[in-house]
């Protein structure tokens, strides 16, 4: 595979790296808040992938505007809509996780996972 093709498709690689970083953070971090941050990084990677899939080089945002000339190239709006829904979902997951962490802190007095397992 030529190097130029890899360079053109760089958003895919960045999104994959973000995804892996997020997974790593969820699985290996001991601090619960850092785990939640890991969730957000992971979802950001996926959203970047979606946006990159929908993007067309030289396209404009898919909003109808009479001022634009005829035959202008619009980008694919569907992935953007999916990402919007995904953002709302990840927001609610984050809020729920934070609420549970607050409750855990109330029970154990710490948000450090090994400490919680020790205190159990």
């Amino acid at each position, binding site marked *: 595979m030529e190097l130029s093709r890899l360079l053109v498709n760089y958003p895919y690689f960045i999104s994959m790296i973000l995804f892996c970083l997020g997974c790593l953070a*969820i699985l290996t971090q001991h601090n619960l808040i850092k785990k939640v941050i890991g*969730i957000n990084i992971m979802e950001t990677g*996926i959203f970047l992938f979606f946006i990159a899939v929908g993007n067309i080089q030289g396209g404009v945002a898919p909003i109808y505007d009479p001022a634009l000339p005829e035959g202008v190239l619009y980008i694919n709006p569907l992935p953007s809509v*999916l990402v919007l829904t995904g953002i709302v979902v990840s927001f609610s997951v984050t809020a729920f996780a934070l609420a*549970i962490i607050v409750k*855990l802190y109330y029970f154990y007095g710490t948000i450090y996972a090994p400490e919680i397992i020790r205190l*159990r």
Partner: protein
Amino acid sequence: MQYLEMLPFLLILLPLCICFVMPMFARWKSEVCPYLALGATVLALIMSVMLTVQVAGGELLSYAAGGWLPPWGIEIFIDELAAMMLLLLCGTCLFVLLFSYRSLPKEIPPPAAGWYYTLFVLTLAAMMGMTVTNDLFNLYVMVEIVAIGSCGLVVAKGERLSTEASLRYLMLSTLGSGFLLFAIAFLYQVTGNLNYPYVATELLRVGEDYPFLMWATMSFFTVGLGVKAALFPMHIWLPDAHSSAPSPSSAVLSGLVVKVYIVAQLRIYFEVFGFDVFHETYMRYLILFLAALAMLGGSLFAFVQLDLKRRLAYSTVAQIGYIFLGFGLGTVWGIKIALLHIIIHAFMKICLFLSAGAVYYQTGRKKVTHFSGLGYQMPVTMAAFTIASLSMVGIPLFGGFITKYGLALGSLEADNPYFVVLIVLSGLLNAAYYFPIIWQAYFTSGAEMKFFMDKVPVTMLIPIAIMALGVIYMGIFPGSILEFLERYVLRYLL
């Protein structure tokens, strides 16, 4: 007549609407919530019975939400599998709700009860949505709603252990849905569609150009939905979450929530990718291997647990292995039996968890070693418990026997005779950890050998009894259900 066409959509929308309104009642008039939840479930049950009658007549129903036709809009599609799952979900949830009406006040703090019912209806509606949807992204949204709702059901108890288990469940299931979403993104990138049949036809055309991507997508789906379905090495969240939840919600989580993920996985494997891709990417062998591990490992772990609900939770891990074994065999017979096992296991596990809840309600006992003489103090509950555990072990006349026998036949048919040994071994292990409980309950010396009626409300006894009767019914007359499911399986495997 226009409303009859909308029925598949109303089925999900009406419970969702009721649970949108329910927070108002939970805040200001908490005592109405159980009745609202019961009403929503009964409504959904009536609608799903109507739909099942239509589907049994040989008609497949589809509805495009908001009038946007399939390639663009969300399509609701009801075939035999979806109809079966709808009946199962609504029917069993109705009885679990009936049970929780009296048992909840003892298990969760009273102010949380209204919110608990809200989450219950939300989870039910999202589960129904997952089984009937025909759109990949809608599947993802429903998966997330089920994940949040079921975490809420776990955390409702408000104790240390359940809070911690719920956080672990939330983390791992979010990881799983991340994988699921990435897999959906891959599929969208290759095919440009989100609707199952359209994706399937596109994949047939272009799939061979992207062998690595197919592999990655397949494995992402397996991991993403496998974490949620508690396939063996990814089951670590399950025992904590299911054992520390209030008993009605552990019944629902163990009996139904895990199953709808399996159904979604089945749909993606066989409707979107097709059996050939499933076979050629070696995903089939991976599934078979993990299923074999689950059958042995789940039973072995269950064997050493002393807490009754923990033991039941590990037993769920083993039974998930049976279902995946049926899929992995890849024959019509194997998948049919696996689908039947989804139904039978739902009945068995709900019966077991509800009886564990009833035992806790009357005596406050949780350990398996404290069951002596219970067969005389709570005859109805322990009779149901005995029926369900005999069925788990695989004694003839009960539902579990049909699926064990069927899976053994299926693995012989598919030239995999080792699985027969595994099934027998797992059945023996099941016997080893269920029989001591029953033996203790009935035959301990020194206990008073006099029958008393259970001191448990009737609304808690009826669901337990009906679940046990369902197990017996499945064991004697599985034919009609199998014929009904065969129509679904034949459509996608031939």
